Protein backbone atom coordinates (compact mmCIF):
# COMPACT_ATOMS: atom_id res chain seq x y z
CA UNK A 1 0.00 0.00 0.00
CA UNK A 2 3.05 2.32 0.06
CA UNK A 3 2.27 3.64 -3.39
CA UNK A 4 -1.34 4.32 -2.46
CA UNK A 5 -0.53 6.23 0.66
CA UNK A 6 2.09 8.28 -1.15
CA UNK A 7 -0.55 9.32 -3.65
CA UNK A 8 -2.89 10.18 -0.82
CA UNK A 9 -0.18 12.23 0.80
CA UNK A 10 0.30 14.15 -2.42
CA UNK A 11 -3.40 14.81 -2.77
CA UNK A 12 -3.24 16.08 0.76
CA UNK A 13 -0.49 18.54 0.43
CA UNK A 14 -2.04 20.07 -2.67
CA UNK A 15 -5.07 22.03 -1.53
CA UNK A 16 -8.19 21.87 -3.72
CA UNK A 17 -7.36 25.33 -5.08
CA UNK A 18 -3.69 26.19 -5.60
CA UNK A 19 -3.10 29.61 -4.01
CA UNK A 20 -1.89 31.35 -7.19
CA UNK A 21 -5.06 30.27 -8.99
CA UNK A 22 -7.37 31.34 -6.20
CA UNK A 23 -9.01 34.01 -8.32
CA UNK A 24 -12.75 34.50 -8.83
CA UNK A 25 -12.81 33.14 -12.41
CA UNK A 26 -10.78 30.10 -11.39
CA UNK A 27 -13.18 29.48 -8.50
CA UNK A 28 -16.11 29.66 -10.89
CA UNK A 29 -14.46 27.07 -13.15
CA UNK A 30 -13.91 24.81 -10.18
CA UNK A 31 -17.51 25.14 -9.09
CA UNK A 32 -18.71 24.31 -12.60
CA UNK A 33 -16.33 21.36 -12.69
CA UNK A 34 -17.63 20.14 -9.32
CA UNK A 35 -21.24 20.46 -10.39
CA UNK A 36 -20.55 18.64 -13.67
CA UNK A 37 -18.84 15.81 -11.81
CA UNK A 38 -21.69 15.66 -9.33
CA UNK A 39 -24.14 15.41 -12.21
CA UNK A 40 -22.17 12.61 -13.88
CA UNK A 41 -21.88 10.54 -10.71
CA UNK A 42 -25.54 11.10 -9.81
CA UNK A 43 -26.59 10.13 -13.35
CA UNK A 44 -24.58 6.93 -13.06
CA UNK A 45 -26.35 6.01 -9.80
CA UNK A 46 -29.73 6.88 -11.30
CA UNK A 47 -29.05 4.57 -14.26
CA UNK A 48 -28.04 1.76 -11.94
CA UNK A 49 -31.12 2.33 -9.76
CA UNK A 50 -33.44 2.29 -12.74
CA UNK A 51 -32.01 -1.03 -13.90
CA UNK A 52 -34.32 -2.63 -11.32
CA UNK A 53 -37.47 -0.64 -11.88
CA UNK A 54 -39.78 -2.62 -9.61
CA UNK A 55 -37.31 -2.40 -6.76
CA UNK A 56 -36.92 1.34 -7.37
CA UNK A 57 -40.69 1.87 -7.38
CA UNK A 58 -40.96 0.04 -4.06
CA UNK A 59 -38.19 1.99 -2.34
CA UNK A 60 -39.63 5.26 -3.72
CA UNK A 61 -43.00 4.32 -2.27
CA UNK A 62 -41.32 3.28 0.99
CA UNK A 63 -39.62 6.65 1.27
CA UNK A 64 -42.95 8.35 0.63
CA UNK A 65 -44.77 6.30 3.27
CA UNK A 66 -41.97 6.62 5.83
CA UNK A 67 -42.12 10.41 5.73
CA UNK A 68 -45.92 10.40 5.53
CA UNK A 69 -45.87 8.82 9.02
CA UNK A 70 -44.45 12.06 10.40
CA UNK A 71 -47.47 13.89 9.14
CA UNK A 72 -49.74 11.07 10.31
CA UNK A 73 -48.55 11.84 13.84
CA UNK A 74 -49.59 15.46 13.38
CA UNK A 75 -52.96 14.36 11.97
CA UNK A 76 -53.43 12.09 14.99
CA UNK A 77 -52.72 15.05 17.26
CA UNK A 78 -55.31 17.10 15.40
CA UNK A 79 -57.82 14.28 15.80
CA UNK A 80 -57.75 15.27 19.49
CA UNK A 81 -57.36 19.06 19.33
CA UNK A 82 -58.37 21.93 17.04
CA UNK A 83 -55.16 23.87 17.38
CA UNK A 84 -51.58 23.38 18.47
CA UNK A 85 -49.74 26.38 19.90
CA UNK A 86 -52.61 28.50 18.54
CA UNK A 87 -52.18 27.24 14.98
CA UNK A 88 -54.88 25.35 13.06
CA UNK A 89 -54.12 22.23 10.97
CA UNK A 90 -53.77 24.01 7.58
CA UNK A 91 -51.24 26.43 9.08
CA UNK A 92 -49.25 23.59 10.64
CA UNK A 93 -49.47 21.81 7.27
CA UNK A 94 -47.91 24.87 5.63
CA UNK A 95 -45.05 24.82 8.16
CA UNK A 96 -44.66 21.05 7.77
CA UNK A 97 -44.77 21.25 3.97
CA UNK A 98 -42.16 23.99 3.69
CA UNK A 99 -39.79 22.31 6.16
CA UNK A 100 -40.22 18.83 4.68
CA UNK A 101 -39.83 20.00 1.07
CA UNK A 102 -36.74 22.10 1.79
CA UNK A 103 -35.19 19.28 3.83
CA UNK A 104 -36.21 16.70 1.19
CA UNK A 105 -34.43 18.67 -1.54
CA UNK A 106 -31.30 19.01 0.60
CA UNK A 107 -31.44 15.31 1.48
CA UNK A 108 -31.78 14.39 -2.20
CA UNK A 109 -28.77 16.49 -3.19
CA UNK A 110 -26.50 16.24 -0.11
CA UNK A 111 -27.96 13.42 2.01
CA UNK A 112 -25.20 10.98 1.09
CA UNK A 113 -22.66 13.02 3.06
CA UNK A 114 -24.14 11.33 6.13
CA UNK A 115 -22.08 8.26 5.28
CA UNK A 116 -18.74 10.04 5.29
CA UNK A 117 -17.80 8.77 8.75
CA UNK A 118 -18.02 5.18 7.53
CA UNK A 119 -15.71 5.97 4.62
CA UNK A 120 -13.20 7.60 6.96
CA UNK A 121 -13.37 4.58 9.23
CA UNK A 122 -12.93 1.88 6.61
CA UNK A 123 -10.40 3.85 4.57
CA UNK A 124 -12.44 4.00 1.34
CA UNK A 125 -12.31 7.80 1.46
CA UNK A 126 -8.74 7.56 0.19
CA UNK A 127 -10.00 6.35 -3.16
CA UNK A 128 -11.97 9.56 -3.55
CA UNK A 129 -8.96 11.70 -2.67
CA UNK A 130 -6.82 10.50 -5.56
CA UNK A 131 -9.42 11.15 -8.25
CA UNK A 132 -9.26 14.48 -10.10
CA UNK A 133 -12.76 15.31 -8.93
CA UNK A 134 -13.70 17.54 -5.98
CA UNK A 135 -14.10 15.30 -2.93
CA UNK A 136 -17.29 17.00 -1.81
CA UNK A 137 -18.93 16.35 -5.19
CA UNK A 138 -17.98 12.67 -4.91
CA UNK A 139 -19.12 12.30 -1.32
CA UNK A 140 -22.42 14.09 -1.97
CA UNK A 141 -23.22 12.20 -5.18
CA UNK A 142 -22.11 8.84 -3.78
CA UNK A 143 -25.00 6.36 -4.07
CA UNK A 144 -27.26 9.17 -5.22
CA UNK A 145 -30.66 7.97 -4.03
CA UNK A 146 -33.42 9.00 -6.38
CA UNK A 147 -35.91 7.33 -4.03
CA UNK A 148 -35.54 10.39 -1.79
CA UNK A 149 -37.90 12.08 -4.24
CA UNK A 150 -40.52 10.27 -2.17
CA UNK A 151 -39.80 12.61 0.73
CA UNK A 152 -39.90 15.69 -1.49
CA UNK A 153 -43.20 14.58 -3.04
CA UNK A 154 -44.78 13.96 0.34
CA UNK A 155 -43.63 17.36 1.63
CA UNK A 156 -44.88 19.11 -1.50
CA UNK A 157 -48.31 17.45 -1.22
CA UNK A 158 -48.74 18.57 2.39
CA UNK A 159 -47.51 22.02 1.38
CA UNK A 160 -50.12 22.10 -1.38
CA UNK A 161 -52.83 21.28 1.12
CA UNK A 162 -51.57 23.94 3.55
CA UNK A 163 -51.44 26.60 0.83
CA UNK A 164 -54.94 25.76 -0.35
CA UNK A 165 -56.56 25.51 3.07
CA UNK A 166 -54.80 28.13 5.21
CA UNK A 167 -56.33 31.62 5.29
CA UNK A 168 -53.64 33.63 3.50
CA UNK A 169 -54.02 37.21 2.24
CA UNK A 170 -51.93 36.70 -0.90
CA UNK A 171 -49.76 39.49 -2.28
CA UNK A 172 -47.24 39.30 -5.17
CA UNK A 173 -44.42 39.45 -2.61
CA UNK A 174 -45.77 36.43 -0.75
CA UNK A 175 -46.06 34.44 -3.99
CA UNK A 176 -42.44 35.28 -4.80
CA UNK A 177 -41.28 34.49 -1.28
CA UNK A 178 -42.53 30.89 -1.46
CA UNK A 179 -40.00 29.50 -3.98
CA UNK A 180 -37.26 31.72 -2.48
CA UNK A 181 -37.97 30.19 0.93
CA UNK A 182 -37.86 26.60 -0.37
CA UNK A 183 -34.57 27.06 -2.24
CA UNK A 184 -32.88 28.96 0.60
CA UNK A 185 -34.18 26.44 3.10
CA UNK A 186 -32.73 23.59 1.06
CA UNK A 187 -29.42 25.50 0.96
CA UNK A 188 -29.40 25.96 4.76
CA UNK A 189 -30.03 22.24 5.28
CA UNK A 190 -27.35 21.40 2.68
CA UNK A 191 -24.91 23.54 4.64
CA UNK A 192 -25.83 21.58 7.78
CA UNK A 193 -25.18 18.32 5.90
CA UNK A 194 -21.74 19.54 4.79
CA UNK A 195 -20.82 20.92 8.21
CA UNK A 196 -21.94 17.61 9.73
CA UNK A 197 -19.78 15.71 7.25
CA UNK A 198 -16.83 17.93 8.19
CA UNK A 199 -17.46 17.05 11.83
CA UNK A 200 -17.39 13.36 10.92
CA UNK A 201 -13.78 13.71 9.83
CA UNK A 202 -13.04 14.42 13.48
CA UNK A 203 -15.59 12.12 15.09
CA UNK A 204 -16.10 9.26 12.67
CA UNK A 205 -18.95 7.60 14.53
CA UNK A 206 -20.89 10.78 15.10
CA UNK A 207 -23.31 10.64 12.16
CA UNK A 208 -26.13 10.90 14.66
CA UNK A 209 -25.08 14.39 15.70
CA UNK A 210 -25.70 15.38 12.10
CA UNK A 211 -29.08 13.64 12.26
CA UNK A 212 -30.11 15.66 15.27
CA UNK A 213 -29.64 18.88 13.29
CA UNK A 214 -31.05 17.62 9.98
CA UNK A 215 -33.91 15.30 10.96
CA UNK A 216 -34.30 16.99 14.33
CA UNK A 217 -34.26 20.42 12.69
CA UNK A 218 -36.98 19.55 10.21
CA UNK A 219 -39.09 17.98 12.98
CA UNK A 220 -38.74 21.19 15.00
CA UNK A 221 -39.70 23.40 12.05
CA UNK A 222 -42.81 21.34 11.34
CA UNK A 223 -44.42 22.74 14.46
CA UNK A 224 -45.30 26.40 15.17
CA UNK A 225 -42.60 28.33 17.06
CA UNK A 226 -45.19 29.20 19.72
CA UNK A 227 -44.98 25.56 20.86
CA UNK A 228 -41.37 25.93 22.00
CA UNK A 229 -39.68 27.82 24.80
CA UNK A 230 -38.45 31.30 23.84
CA UNK A 231 -34.81 30.35 24.47
CA UNK A 232 -35.06 27.42 22.10
CA UNK A 233 -36.61 29.69 19.46
CA UNK A 234 -33.78 32.21 19.99
CA UNK A 235 -31.25 29.39 19.65
CA UNK A 236 -32.52 28.27 16.25
CA UNK A 237 -32.85 31.87 15.09
CA UNK A 238 -29.50 33.32 16.11
CA UNK A 239 -27.16 30.36 16.72
CA UNK A 240 -28.13 27.61 14.28
CA UNK A 241 -30.24 29.69 11.88
CA UNK A 242 -32.82 27.00 11.13
CA UNK A 243 -35.66 29.49 11.71
CA UNK A 244 -34.76 31.05 8.34
CA UNK A 245 -35.66 27.78 6.57
CA UNK A 246 -39.36 28.34 7.04
CA UNK A 247 -40.52 29.89 10.33
CA UNK A 248 -39.62 33.51 9.53
CA UNK A 249 -40.80 33.59 5.89
CA UNK A 250 -43.79 31.28 6.48
CA UNK A 251 -45.05 33.32 9.42
CA UNK A 252 -44.89 36.41 7.22
CA UNK A 253 -46.97 34.60 4.59
CA UNK A 254 -49.45 33.52 7.25
CA UNK A 255 -49.52 37.04 8.72
CA UNK A 256 -48.49 35.75 12.14
CA UNK A 257 -46.12 37.47 14.58
CA UNK A 258 -42.81 35.78 15.38
CA UNK A 259 -42.51 35.00 19.11
CA UNK A 260 -39.05 36.56 19.33
CA UNK A 261 -39.28 40.20 18.31
CA UNK A 262 -37.72 40.85 14.90
CA UNK A 263 -38.47 43.41 12.15
CA UNK A 264 -40.71 42.16 9.36
CA UNK A 265 -38.09 42.41 6.64
CA UNK A 266 -36.27 39.36 8.11
CA UNK A 267 -38.81 37.32 6.15
CA UNK A 268 -36.55 38.14 3.16
CA UNK A 269 -33.34 37.25 4.98
CA UNK A 270 -33.25 33.52 4.03
CA UNK A 271 -31.18 33.94 0.81
CA UNK A 272 -28.27 35.85 2.44
CA UNK A 273 -28.46 33.64 5.54
CA UNK A 274 -28.32 30.54 3.32
CA UNK A 275 -25.30 31.95 1.46
CA UNK A 276 -23.53 32.66 4.74
CA UNK A 277 -24.29 29.14 6.00
CA UNK A 278 -22.94 27.59 2.80
CA UNK A 279 -19.78 29.71 3.03
CA UNK A 280 -19.19 28.68 6.64
CA UNK A 281 -19.86 25.03 5.85
CA UNK A 282 -17.42 25.28 2.95
CA UNK A 283 -14.71 26.64 5.24
CA UNK A 284 -15.38 23.86 7.76
CA UNK A 285 -15.26 21.24 5.02
CA UNK A 286 -11.91 22.47 3.69
CA UNK A 287 -10.38 22.64 7.14
CA UNK A 288 -11.58 19.11 7.90
CA UNK A 289 -10.37 17.73 4.58
CA UNK A 290 -6.96 19.29 5.08
CA UNK A 291 -6.59 17.84 8.55
CA UNK A 292 -7.59 14.36 7.37
CA UNK A 293 -5.21 11.54 8.16
CA UNK A 294 -5.95 8.26 6.49
CA UNK A 295 -6.42 5.14 8.59
CA UNK A 296 -3.77 3.66 6.34
CA UNK A 297 -5.75 0.50 5.72
Amino acid at each position, binding site marked *: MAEGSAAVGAAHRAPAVPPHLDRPERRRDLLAHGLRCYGLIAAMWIRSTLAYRASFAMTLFGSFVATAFDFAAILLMFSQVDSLGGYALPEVALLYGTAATAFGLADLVMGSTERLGRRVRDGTLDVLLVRPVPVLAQVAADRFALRRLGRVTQGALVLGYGLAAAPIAWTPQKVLLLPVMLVSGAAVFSAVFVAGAAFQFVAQDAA*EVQNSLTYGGTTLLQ*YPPTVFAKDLVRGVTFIVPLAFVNWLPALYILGRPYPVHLPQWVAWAPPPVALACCALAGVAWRAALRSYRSTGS
Partner: protein
Amino acid sequence: MRSGRLYALVALNGFRRHATYRTATAAGIFTNTVFGVILAYTYLALWHQRPHLGGYDQGQALTYVWLGQGLLMVMATMGGGFEDELTERIRTGDIAIDLYRPADLQVWWFAGDTGRAAFHLVGRGVLPMAVGSLLFDLALPADPVRWLAFLLAVALGTAVSFGIRFLVALSAFWLLDGAGVTQMAWLAGMFFSGMLLPLNVFPGTLGEVARALPWSALIQVPADVFLGERTGRALLGAYAFQAGWALVLLAAGRLLQSTATRRVVVQGG
Protein backbone atom coordinates in the same frame (compact mmCIF):
# COMPACT_ATOMS: atom_id res chain seq x y z
CA MET B 1 -25.38 -26.48 31.52
CA ARG B 2 -22.52 -25.94 29.08
CA SER B 3 -24.80 -24.42 26.47
CA GLY B 4 -26.18 -22.01 29.08
CA ARG B 5 -22.70 -20.72 29.69
CA LEU B 6 -22.09 -20.41 25.96
CA TYR B 7 -25.15 -18.22 25.40
CA ALA B 8 -24.31 -16.11 28.45
CA LEU B 9 -20.93 -15.47 26.84
CA VAL B 10 -22.58 -14.60 23.53
CA ALA B 11 -24.82 -12.12 25.37
CA LEU B 12 -21.84 -10.62 27.18
CA ASN B 13 -20.09 -10.33 23.86
CA GLY B 14 -23.09 -8.52 22.39
CA PHE B 15 -22.91 -6.06 25.27
CA ARG B 16 -19.17 -5.53 24.90
CA ARG B 17 -19.34 -5.16 21.16
CA HIS B 18 -21.76 -2.26 21.35
CA ALA B 19 -19.89 -0.78 24.28
CA THR B 20 -16.87 -0.23 22.01
CA TYR B 21 -18.71 2.36 19.92
CA ARG B 22 -18.22 5.16 22.41
CA THR B 23 -18.42 8.13 20.06
CA ALA B 24 -21.49 6.67 18.39
CA THR B 25 -23.11 6.19 21.78
CA ALA B 26 -22.33 9.77 22.81
CA ALA B 27 -23.66 11.05 19.47
CA GLY B 28 -26.77 8.91 19.91
CA ILE B 29 -27.39 10.24 23.40
CA PHE B 30 -27.12 13.77 22.00
CA THR B 31 -29.63 12.98 19.25
CA ASN B 32 -32.07 11.28 21.63
CA THR B 33 -31.88 14.33 23.87
CA VAL B 34 -32.50 16.79 21.02
CA PHE B 35 -35.50 14.80 19.82
CA GLY B 36 -36.70 14.43 23.39
CA VAL B 37 -36.71 18.20 23.87
CA ILE B 38 -38.54 18.83 20.58
CA LEU B 39 -41.16 16.14 21.24
CA ALA B 40 -41.61 17.21 24.86
CA TYR B 41 -42.63 20.70 23.75
CA THR B 42 -45.10 19.38 21.18
CA TYR B 43 -46.59 17.11 23.85
CA LEU B 44 -46.80 20.08 26.22
CA ALA B 45 -48.77 22.02 23.59
CA LEU B 46 -51.02 19.02 23.03
CA TRP B 47 -51.65 18.36 26.73
CA HIS B 48 -52.13 22.08 27.33
CA GLN B 49 -55.12 21.90 24.95
CA ARG B 50 -56.36 18.57 26.24
CA PRO B 51 -55.28 17.88 29.83
CA HIS B 52 -55.50 14.15 30.67
CA LEU B 53 -55.45 13.15 27.02
CA GLY B 54 -55.17 9.37 26.77
CA GLY B 55 -55.47 9.13 30.54
CA TYR B 56 -52.07 10.77 31.15
CA ASP B 57 -51.52 13.98 33.03
CA GLN B 58 -48.89 16.41 31.78
CA GLY B 59 -46.03 14.94 33.83
CA GLN B 60 -46.83 11.44 32.60
CA ALA B 61 -47.01 12.62 28.99
CA LEU B 62 -43.58 14.27 29.30
CA THR B 63 -42.17 11.16 30.95
CA TYR B 64 -43.58 9.11 28.08
CA VAL B 65 -41.51 11.18 25.61
CA TRP B 66 -38.25 10.46 27.42
CA LEU B 67 -39.09 6.80 27.93
CA GLY B 68 -39.63 6.56 24.18
CA GLN B 69 -36.22 8.14 23.50
CA GLY B 70 -34.57 5.90 26.08
CA LEU B 71 -36.14 2.71 24.73
CA LEU B 72 -35.76 3.53 21.03
CA MET B 73 -32.43 1.73 20.67
CA VAL B 74 -33.14 -0.90 23.31
CA MET B 75 -36.13 -2.09 21.30
CA ALA B 76 -34.38 -1.39 17.97
CA THR B 77 -37.66 0.24 16.92
CA MET B 78 -35.97 1.83 13.94
CA GLY B 79 -33.68 -1.12 13.19
CA GLY B 80 -30.02 -1.21 14.12
CA GLY B 81 -30.09 -4.61 15.76
CA PHE B 82 -28.73 -7.93 14.56
CA GLU B 83 -31.18 -8.28 11.67
CA ASP B 84 -29.08 -6.51 9.03
CA GLU B 85 -26.14 -8.77 9.78
CA LEU B 86 -28.21 -11.95 9.74
CA THR B 87 -29.91 -10.91 6.49
CA GLU B 88 -26.48 -10.31 4.97
CA ARG B 89 -25.23 -13.72 6.10
CA ILE B 90 -28.27 -15.37 4.55
CA ARG B 91 -27.81 -13.44 1.32
CA THR B 92 -24.13 -14.32 0.98
CA GLY B 93 -24.58 -17.93 2.10
CA ASP B 94 -22.38 -17.55 5.19
CA ILE B 95 -25.41 -18.77 7.11
CA ALA B 96 -24.37 -22.32 6.13
CA ILE B 97 -21.35 -21.96 8.44
CA ASP B 98 -23.60 -20.79 11.30
CA LEU B 99 -25.80 -23.84 10.84
CA TYR B 100 -22.86 -26.19 11.29
CA ARG B 101 -21.99 -24.64 14.64
CA PRO B 102 -22.97 -26.66 17.70
CA ALA B 103 -25.32 -23.86 18.73
CA ASP B 104 -28.91 -23.10 17.93
CA LEU B 105 -29.30 -20.28 15.41
CA GLN B 106 -32.24 -18.57 17.10
CA VAL B 107 -30.89 -18.82 20.64
CA TRP B 108 -27.46 -17.65 19.48
CA TRP B 109 -28.80 -14.45 17.91
CA PHE B 110 -31.26 -13.94 20.76
CA ALA B 111 -28.42 -14.05 23.28
CA GLY B 112 -26.35 -11.57 21.27
CA ASP B 113 -29.32 -9.25 20.83
CA THR B 114 -30.08 -9.37 24.55
CA GLY B 115 -26.55 -8.17 25.24
CA ARG B 116 -27.03 -5.36 22.73
CA ALA B 117 -30.34 -4.33 24.30
CA ALA B 118 -28.81 -4.37 27.79
CA PHE B 119 -26.00 -2.09 26.63
CA HIS B 120 -28.39 0.38 25.03
CA LEU B 121 -30.56 0.45 28.13
CA VAL B 122 -27.55 1.63 30.11
CA GLY B 123 -25.72 3.48 27.34
CA ARG B 124 -28.56 5.31 25.66
CA GLY B 125 -31.41 5.07 28.13
CA VAL B 126 -30.14 6.55 31.37
CA LEU B 127 -28.55 9.81 30.26
CA PRO B 128 -31.37 11.21 28.06
CA MET B 129 -33.77 10.34 30.88
CA ALA B 130 -31.58 12.21 33.36
CA VAL B 131 -31.38 15.27 31.10
CA GLY B 132 -35.12 15.07 30.52
CA SER B 133 -35.81 15.05 34.24
CA LEU B 134 -33.59 18.13 34.67
CA LEU B 135 -35.38 20.08 31.92
CA PHE B 136 -38.96 18.99 32.55
CA ASP B 137 -41.14 17.91 35.45
CA LEU B 138 -41.22 14.16 34.97
CA ALA B 139 -43.37 11.64 36.81
CA LEU B 140 -40.62 9.31 38.02
CA PRO B 141 -41.84 6.54 40.28
CA ALA B 142 -40.60 6.70 43.86
CA ASP B 143 -41.44 3.05 44.48
CA PRO B 144 -38.43 0.77 43.71
CA VAL B 145 -40.84 -2.11 43.01
CA ARG B 146 -42.25 -0.19 40.09
CA TRP B 147 -38.75 0.30 38.65
CA LEU B 148 -38.27 -3.49 38.85
CA ALA B 149 -41.70 -4.07 37.29
CA PHE B 150 -40.64 -1.72 34.50
CA LEU B 151 -37.38 -3.59 33.95
CA LEU B 152 -39.27 -6.86 33.59
CA ALA B 153 -41.62 -5.24 31.05
CA VAL B 154 -38.56 -3.96 29.15
CA ALA B 155 -37.04 -7.46 29.15
CA LEU B 156 -40.26 -8.98 27.80
CA GLY B 157 -40.44 -6.16 25.26
CA THR B 158 -36.97 -6.96 23.96
CA ALA B 159 -38.05 -10.60 23.52
CA VAL B 160 -41.01 -9.47 21.39
CA SER B 161 -38.74 -7.11 19.47
CA PHE B 162 -36.28 -9.93 18.81
CA GLY B 163 -39.14 -12.23 17.75
CA ILE B 164 -40.30 -9.74 15.12
CA ARG B 165 -36.84 -8.98 13.79
CA PHE B 166 -35.82 -12.64 13.62
CA LEU B 167 -38.82 -13.31 11.37
CA VAL B 168 -37.92 -10.28 9.27
CA ALA B 169 -34.33 -11.47 8.87
CA LEU B 170 -35.33 -15.05 8.01
CA SER B 171 -37.57 -13.77 5.24
CA ALA B 172 -34.32 -13.19 3.36
CA PHE B 173 -34.18 -16.98 2.77
CA TRP B 174 -37.07 -16.55 0.37
CA LEU B 175 -36.71 -12.98 -0.79
CA LEU B 176 -32.88 -12.78 -0.90
CA ASP B 177 -33.09 -9.00 -0.74
CA GLY B 178 -34.55 -8.31 2.67
CA ALA B 179 -34.56 -4.51 2.27
CA GLY B 180 -38.26 -4.20 1.48
CA VAL B 181 -39.43 -6.34 4.42
CA THR B 182 -36.94 -4.63 6.74
CA GLN B 183 -38.34 -1.26 5.75
CA MET B 184 -41.95 -2.35 6.24
CA ALA B 185 -41.12 -3.78 9.67
CA TRP B 186 -39.33 -0.55 10.56
CA LEU B 187 -42.33 1.56 9.55
CA ALA B 188 -44.75 -0.65 11.47
CA GLY B 189 -42.41 -0.50 14.47
CA MET B 190 -42.28 3.31 14.33
CA PHE B 191 -46.01 3.72 14.05
CA PHE B 192 -47.43 0.92 16.20
CA SER B 193 -44.92 0.86 19.06
CA GLY B 194 -46.17 4.20 20.31
CA MET B 195 -42.95 5.96 19.36
CA LEU B 196 -44.65 8.82 17.50
CA LEU B 197 -47.53 9.27 19.91
CA PRO B 198 -48.88 7.17 22.80
CA LEU B 199 -51.19 4.48 21.42
CA ASN B 200 -53.95 5.46 23.84
CA VAL B 201 -54.16 8.80 22.03
CA PHE B 202 -54.87 6.99 18.72
CA PRO B 203 -58.58 7.41 17.98
CA GLY B 204 -61.22 4.62 17.91
CA THR B 205 -60.60 1.33 16.17
CA LEU B 206 -57.12 2.37 15.02
CA GLY B 207 -56.20 2.72 18.68
CA GLU B 208 -57.68 -0.65 19.61
CA VAL B 209 -55.89 -2.42 16.77
CA ALA B 210 -52.61 -0.63 17.53
CA ARG B 211 -52.78 -1.63 21.19
CA ALA B 212 -53.43 -5.29 20.30
CA LEU B 213 -50.49 -5.61 17.87
CA PRO B 214 -47.14 -6.97 19.11
CA TRP B 215 -45.34 -3.63 18.62
CA SER B 216 -47.25 -2.09 21.52
CA ALA B 217 -45.21 -4.44 23.75
CA LEU B 218 -42.07 -2.48 22.83
CA ILE B 219 -42.77 1.02 24.15
CA GLN B 220 -46.40 1.51 25.11
CA VAL B 221 -46.62 -1.35 27.62
CA PRO B 222 -43.28 -0.72 29.41
CA ALA B 223 -44.17 3.00 29.55
CA ASP B 224 -47.56 2.26 31.08
CA VAL B 225 -45.91 0.04 33.69
CA PHE B 226 -43.42 2.81 34.47
CA LEU B 227 -46.14 5.46 34.69
CA GLY B 228 -48.19 3.37 37.11
CA GLU B 229 -51.03 2.83 34.67
CA ARG B 230 -50.68 -0.92 35.09
CA THR B 231 -50.63 -2.25 38.63
CA GLY B 232 -51.96 -5.38 40.35
CA ARG B 233 -53.97 -7.54 37.98
CA ALA B 234 -53.51 -5.10 35.08
CA LEU B 235 -49.76 -5.49 35.51
CA LEU B 236 -50.06 -9.26 35.21
CA GLY B 237 -52.25 -8.69 32.17
CA ALA B 238 -49.53 -6.51 30.63
CA TYR B 239 -46.90 -9.19 31.24
CA ALA B 240 -49.20 -11.87 29.83
CA PHE B 241 -49.74 -9.77 26.71
CA GLN B 242 -45.99 -9.32 26.18
CA ALA B 243 -45.08 -12.91 27.02
CA GLY B 244 -47.89 -14.20 24.80
CA TRP B 245 -46.65 -12.27 21.78
CA ALA B 246 -43.05 -13.23 22.56
CA LEU B 247 -43.95 -16.93 22.62
CA VAL B 248 -46.00 -16.74 19.42
CA LEU B 249 -43.28 -14.86 17.56
CA LEU B 250 -40.42 -17.00 18.86
CA ALA B 251 -42.34 -20.19 18.00
CA ALA B 252 -43.02 -18.85 14.50
CA GLY B 253 -39.30 -18.06 14.27
CA ARG B 254 -38.40 -21.66 15.18
CA LEU B 255 -40.80 -23.02 12.60
CA LEU B 256 -39.45 -20.71 9.91
CA GLN B 257 -35.90 -21.55 10.94
CA SER B 258 -36.37 -25.30 10.51
CA THR B 259 -38.08 -24.79 7.15
CA ALA B 260 -35.34 -22.42 6.04
CA THR B 261 -32.58 -24.75 7.23
CA ARG B 262 -33.92 -27.54 5.04
CA ARG B 263 -33.86 -25.10 2.13
CA VAL B 264 -30.19 -24.39 2.69
CA VAL B 265 -29.39 -28.09 2.59
CA VAL B 266 -31.38 -28.52 -0.63
CA GLN B 267 -29.60 -25.59 -2.27
CA GLY B 268 -26.26 -26.63 -0.88
CA GLY B 269 -25.54 -23.33 0.78
